[in-house]
């Protein structure tokens, strides 16, 4: 028991990988073998979810600093250590990750026939990669997880994706890699500054926070290093104009890939800003905040507009991600308590509601093998349960009060308005456009007469699919009505973050 409480975070992070290895050894031939594999994977991921719930329960939301800290020597010549721990912000993102994984595993029950075992293993490895990136307090450890997680995602898109999967997966990989490699150079610069200023190598975040990175305006090391970090994270978020890998990756990825990509991977960008780019380079961040706020306002409106004219539902949802994640960046860069809380909340929301939307698109795609909006119409008549669920998720995505989406966007706009009024007003129009493209899409897909004969005999959701969607629906309302369940957990961490950012 002692061992478990002392290594709880490590357990949460590495259990999926260990389970993946076990899974690889299980026999997986024939129908029963496949069922066994799928069931095992779901049970494994539920175990991980339960472990993270223990984490949530035992987390002390009043304490400052990192909790469940573990530190072991690793590559001591460079001061690199296995150094992990969580605060309120990473706690919630861990929960999001472990929450979504069993859902996508259950969601892809019928979708994957080929190479099933590899698929399940990769998803579990991916979970370890993402969780590791959320808990790492050593910058090289973080980088390792950050890069290593590209591999399973790359393979998920490339092997089980759609027609253009190779193009999309390669683009995803290379795009992300370029950003990360430049960040790596900034990390090296930071570490050699630490060595020069404090006399020893260290990659521990708590040590690196103490480094004074030279700053005097735009052309100074701090600004360049901030930009290098920001590039890596902005690509991941993705922030306009670095977003073009996203529609391709999302559309080509299998449903589970899209859900994880939108639900968790994009959050790593926002998380990276909070944990690394901002506190390491506060002055550069203040200097460039207007630029990034402006870009995020553009992303919000631009993403919404482009989403509006998409003929493909999945691409529409992909562009809506650009818009929604724009809010996250807007809130972060406005740097006040309300907006930052809102941003983190919005990250969770986006994970839930966009994840839900991708699942829904997957369900309808499995039935009709098309995602063109014009192929549908009047689906409500044949799939009433589906219609209700789809409606709820849609409303959550357009941030109707009472759903989770409202809390995040409301807080962000409220906070950002105090920092930069004009940009916030522009961004606020994004809320309206968000409602337009979602409702318009919903109307064209679900209402009106059934024009296409193939749509007449669509089966409504099966029990499995309802079970897949139920947690998401519950989360939408719980997060919308009782936001304090989550906001209270991160309050102290956000305050600590903001005090770090005072110059």
């Amino acid at each position, binding site marked *: 028991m002692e061992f478990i409480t002392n290594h709880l975070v490590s357990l949460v992070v590495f259990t999926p990988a260990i389970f993946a290895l076990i899974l690889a050894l299980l026999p997986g031939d024939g129908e029963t073998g496949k069922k066994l594999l799928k069931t095992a994977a779901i049970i494994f991921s539920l175990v991980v979810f339960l472990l993270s719930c223990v984490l949530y329960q035992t987390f002390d939301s009043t304490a400052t600093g990192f909790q469940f800290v573990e530190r072991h020597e*690793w*590559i*001591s*010549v*460079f001061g690199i250590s296995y150094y992990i721990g969580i605060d309120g912000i990473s706690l919630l993102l861990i929960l999001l990750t472990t929450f979504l994984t069993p859902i996508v595993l259950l969601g892809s029950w019928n979708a994957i026939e080929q*190479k099933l075992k*590899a698929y399940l293993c990769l998803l579990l490895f991916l979970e370890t990669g993402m969780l590791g990136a959320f808990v790492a307090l050593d910058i*090289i450890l973080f*980088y*390792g997880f950050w*890069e*290593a997680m*590209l*591999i399973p995602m*790359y*393979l998920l898109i*490339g*092997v089980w994706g759609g027609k253009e*999967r*190779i193009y999309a*997966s*390669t683009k995803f*990989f*290379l795009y992300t*890699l*370029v950003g990360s*490699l*430049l960040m*790596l*150079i900034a990390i*090296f*610069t930071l*570490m*050699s500054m630490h*060595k020069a200023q404090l006399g020893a190598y260290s990659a521990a975040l708590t040590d690196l926070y103490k480094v004074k990175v030279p700053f005097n305006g735009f052309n100074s090391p701090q600004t360049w290093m901030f930009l290098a970090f920001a590039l890596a994270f902005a690509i991941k978020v993705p922030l306009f104009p670095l977003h073009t890998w996203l529609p391709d990756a999302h559309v080509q990825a299998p449903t589970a890939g899209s859900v994880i990509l939108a639900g968790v991977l994009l959050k790593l960008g926002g998380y990276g800003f909070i944990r690394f780019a901002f506190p390491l380079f506060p002055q550069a961040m203040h200097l460039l905040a207007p630029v990034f706020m402006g870009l995020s306002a553009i992303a919000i409106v631009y993403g919404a507009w482009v989403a509006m004219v998409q003929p493909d539902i999945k691409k529409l949802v992909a562009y809506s991600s650009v818009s929604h994640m724009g809010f996250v960046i807007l809130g972060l860069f406005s740097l006040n308590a309300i907006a930052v809380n809102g941003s983190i909340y919005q990250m969770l929301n986006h994970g839930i509601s966009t994840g839900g939307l991708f699942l829904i698109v997957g369900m309808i795609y499995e039935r009709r093998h098309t995602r063109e909006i014009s192929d549908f119409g009047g689906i409500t008549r044949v799939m009433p349960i589906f219609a209700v669920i789809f409606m709820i998720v849609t409303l959550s995505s357009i941030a109707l009060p009472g759903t989770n989406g409202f809390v995040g966007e409301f807080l962000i706009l409220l906070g950002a308005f105090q920092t930069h009024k004009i940009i916030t007003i522009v961004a606020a129009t994004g809320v309206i456009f968000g409602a337009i493209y979602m409702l318009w899409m919903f109307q064209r897909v679900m209402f009106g007469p059934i024009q296409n004969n193939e749509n007449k005999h669509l089966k409504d959701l099966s029990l499995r699919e309802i079970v897949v969607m139920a947690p998401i629906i519950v989360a939408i309302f719980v997060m919308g009505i009782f936001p304090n369940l989550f906001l209270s957990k991160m309050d102290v961490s956000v305050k600590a973050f903001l005090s770090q950012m005072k110059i």
Partner: protein
Amino acid sequence: MEDQLIKPQNLNLSREQLAMLLPYLLVAVGAMVTLLAGVTRNANNKLAAAGVGFLTIVAALYSVTAVWGEPSITLFGGMLAADYSSGLFNALLLGATGLVLLSSYSYLEKEGIHYAEYYSLLLFSCLGMMLLASSLDLIVLFVSLEVMSIGVYVLVGFRRTDVKSNEAALKYFILGSAASAILLFGIALIYGATGTMNITELAVIAKTNPAVNPLMSLASVLVLAGFLFKVATVPFHMWMPDVYEGAPTSVTNFMTTGLKAAAFASFMRVFMNMGFGDNLTSTLNIGLHNVLWVIALLTMFFGNVIALTQRNIKRMLAYSSIAHTGYIVVGFISGGRSEYGYTSIVVYLIAYVIMNIGAFTIVALVGERGDRNTDVQDYAGLGFRHPLLGFGMAVFMFSMAGIPPTVGFAGKYLIFSSAVQAGETTLAILAVLCSAISAYYYLRVIVFMYMKDPIRDSRVAFTIPVTLVIFAATVATLSFGLFPSMLIHAAKKAASI
């Protein structure tokens, strides 16, 4: 000066010296014994030759470990170093040769070019490499370079009836001889300028007398060019893709790993001793720095962009090897100006050897008689047909691309972080961008292995030695990637004078 002359009494070896010399002696004897196996016209002579060869390497490796960490001494009146660096490189080169030897057997059988002399040539070459990596005298350096090269010239043309193989051997021989001549000319000029060929003495002269001597500058360029030819940097690289493609795959494997590592080890020893990378105060150092800067950049860039266009996997790996050379040259540029500058070279070389042996062994295994089946397309669907083979190749490709947690990342980490520490941030940025380009063609192998359906059904015939080699390389790539501390410590020790 007097005791430097080769007199019989100077050749008396003490016990320690003999112990240090034992690996070289063993390999030399082994090579000759193996040669005898070829003389017997027995049908089993290949097996015997391979067995003797392998045992020789095992014995030599053992004798290397027996004197591991002993205080450094010199042999033959300061002509040969016996220090940590030579120990480490001897182990690396012997290990590489051993793995190549293991993977060669079935390959040569498949290609129908199995002769006992192959192993003898391999061992002679290996001896040259080991001597090259530890030579402290320019003449010994030259002779060992030739011992190494001549063996490889023959090996490249080992597929006697194949035009491509012959062409490759001839090209390599002509250009290699020209490069040797350039190197030798440089050595002669150095002797003319300083009156000595001993590297440690040269170092003293270079450090106490930093004023530019035009003769010394010229000599440095010529020696530099000789080395740069052997390691294949732009613009001295053009022989390499042709030779790599034409040579039997197992020989390519040997060249890309052992030969390059030995040439770099020797280059580093000279460079480090002469203090070329220590500072940017003397004019010669600045000049060499600038020259290497441009060469490193060109090598990384052209190596990678041309590799993008290759479809033959051997040729692609050849260009990729050129690009890797470029990264290693970055290590020379940061050199003594950062704490782990030279260490990064050693780490990268080890990483490079490990992942290339793995990759080329797989290429040799998948290839069919006459070196067919070596296009990227031929790897379609391989990943799921042979999961472990595919996994190994994927690990090597990701390692070459420098993705954690592989040894390739550890190598790149050291190279780039040292460059940053030495103040070469611009070069480091350009280097990572080149490395991003390289990811594309490494990924293409993965794309074919995992994301495309096979065009025809071809089975891979595994043998135990080959499986062992691939397994060892995969495990080493991952474990040194996850826990590189030991590697870094050893490299650090080897990279200090």
